[in-house]
């Protein structure tokens, strides 16, 4: 614990040093804190990079922090951002319930929050909540999955982290489509908490118990990658895998004939949009938008995988 704390403090010091050095170039519009889950998942890295780049272009200093999906850590980071006098906070949060308190605390301190990717359970506290239309995206993924499965056969569903609304909504979008086909039979449904390694382990044991599976539908791309690795190791590359996120890893797998499809969330643009709304809010007092905003997702398969790069589709 002391070690983690020391690393945390020292990384904070580095971040501080970095942002001080940016201050020399900035047009002095103030500080924007960008807080996301771990950059180990390229999705969150793309968000952080997209937000940071846009903030610096608009003349802000940035403070980039990672909460590792730990609500306590997120709370500490909010205190850091408040103490540093941030003008706005861009957040991909660590839990729909647990995030309400820190966002409120920042609001009370006069610091507006702009949420991306994940919602919180209350409205009227954050200024913007911009999230991917996960339900629409999941339906796209499910329709493709049904088509690939030929409308029949045994399949497995890998779920995301339970505390994350996106896990539930994607599953619900999948089933609203898949359950309409009586010959598609779900033989296992397990959470691998969005994690690649966990998905690998879960897939191995599911495969032992159910060797007759034909497909796997996954709540995100990292779990799809884990499942695919386990299937490959077991010599089961005949199994149809569909993911969600639109990562470069899955893009490359699709191009190599591995994973069959995924659903792109426009993560990079979403992060930039949040910064633009923060800037507008800080300069004019309003974003001109509703608080909660949905962004549509796009199906990625072998026909358009070429155009995908870092959570954005080129025209």
């Amino acid at each position, binding site marked *: 614990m002391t070690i983690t704390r020391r690393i945390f403090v020292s990384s904070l010091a580095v971040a501080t040093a970095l942002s001080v050095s940016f201050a020399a170039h900035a047009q002095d519009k103030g500080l924007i804190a960008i807080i996301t889950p771990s950059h180990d998942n390229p999705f969150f890295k793309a968000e952080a990079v997209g937000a940071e780049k846009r903030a610096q272009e608009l003349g802000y200093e940035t403070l980039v922090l990672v909460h590792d999906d730990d609500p306590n850590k997120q709370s500490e980071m909010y205190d850091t951002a408040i103490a540093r006098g941030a003008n706005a906070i861009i957040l991909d949060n660590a839990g729909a319930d647990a995030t309400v308190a820190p966002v409120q605390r920042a609001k009370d301190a006069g610091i507006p929050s702009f949420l991306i990717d994940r919602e919180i359970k209350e409205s009227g506290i954050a200024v913007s909540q911009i999230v991917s239309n996960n*339900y629409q995206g999941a339906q796209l993924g499910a329709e493709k999955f049904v088509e690939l499965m030929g409308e029949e056969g045994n399949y497995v569903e890998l779920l995301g982290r339970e505390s994350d609304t996106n896990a539930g909504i994607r599953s619900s979008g999948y089933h609203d*489509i898949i359950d309409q086909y009586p010959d598609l039979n779900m033989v296992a449904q397990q959470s691998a908490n969005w994690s690649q390694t966990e998905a690998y382990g879960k897939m191995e044991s599911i495969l032992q118990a159910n060797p007759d599976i034909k497909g796997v539908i996954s709540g995100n791309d990292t779990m799809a990658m884990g499942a695919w690795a386990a299937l490959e190791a077991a010599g089961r590359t005949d199994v149809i895998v569909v993911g969600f996120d639109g990562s470069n890893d899955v893009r490359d797998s699709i191009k190599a004939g591995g994973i069959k499809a995924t659903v792109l969330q*426009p993560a990079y643009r979403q992060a930039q949009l949040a910064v633009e709304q923060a800037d507008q809010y800080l300069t004019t007092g309003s974003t001109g*938008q*509703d608080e909660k905003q949905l962004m549509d997702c796009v199906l990625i398969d072998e026909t358009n995988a070429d155009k995908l790069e870092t959570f954005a589709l080129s025209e």
Partner: protein
Amino acid sequence: MRDVLKLSVLCLVAGIAVTGCKIVPDPDPAETESSGAGQSDETRMEAFAQENWETKVLPVIQENLVPVDDLRTALATGADAAGEKYGLRPKGEANPWNFAVSGQGKIIEAKLDSRAAKLGVDTSGDGAADVTVQLGPVIRGTALRDAMPFIDFTDFRDQIEFAKLATALNGMAHASISKPEGDVIGQDLRFEGVFTLRDPAMIELVPVMLEIGG
């Protein structure tokens, strides 16, 4: 006596079946709070959809109804131009346009033996289907919900509840049309409904009115 009872029960059941109404009880607020997601979301959103269908949803569609030919002309000048003129959508750059549209054409494709039954209609007279009429019961998309100016995502707890609302509205649309039977290929179809603009060459319609024949 027992037979009379049986008969009256039968009548009652038949009566309910014929009217096709679904009785949706108002949820107990305390229960809704504690039971969280799942069933209660669905029930509450079904009640919301039912409550607003005649009074708000159908009037919005009637007010914004544009003939499909006019819409096509407008779309030729660009999606945003057409959207500004005829479209409906929530605020924000990320939201595609939705349109309430009316039209008629010849049915040239039909898939009726599916949970996602649909008709392919040629409205431009070139022999190819350009409108897909979704008959359900599985109706995809959120066009009905997203076309409604009185529905704002911010007023709903989360995407799950909001998704159930879309499903409930699609369910109302499905219940309000009668599914064509038999050989419909070659027949004329008049329709009114809503769709989300994705590919201007193929309208995927959620119908609220269908008239077949002629």
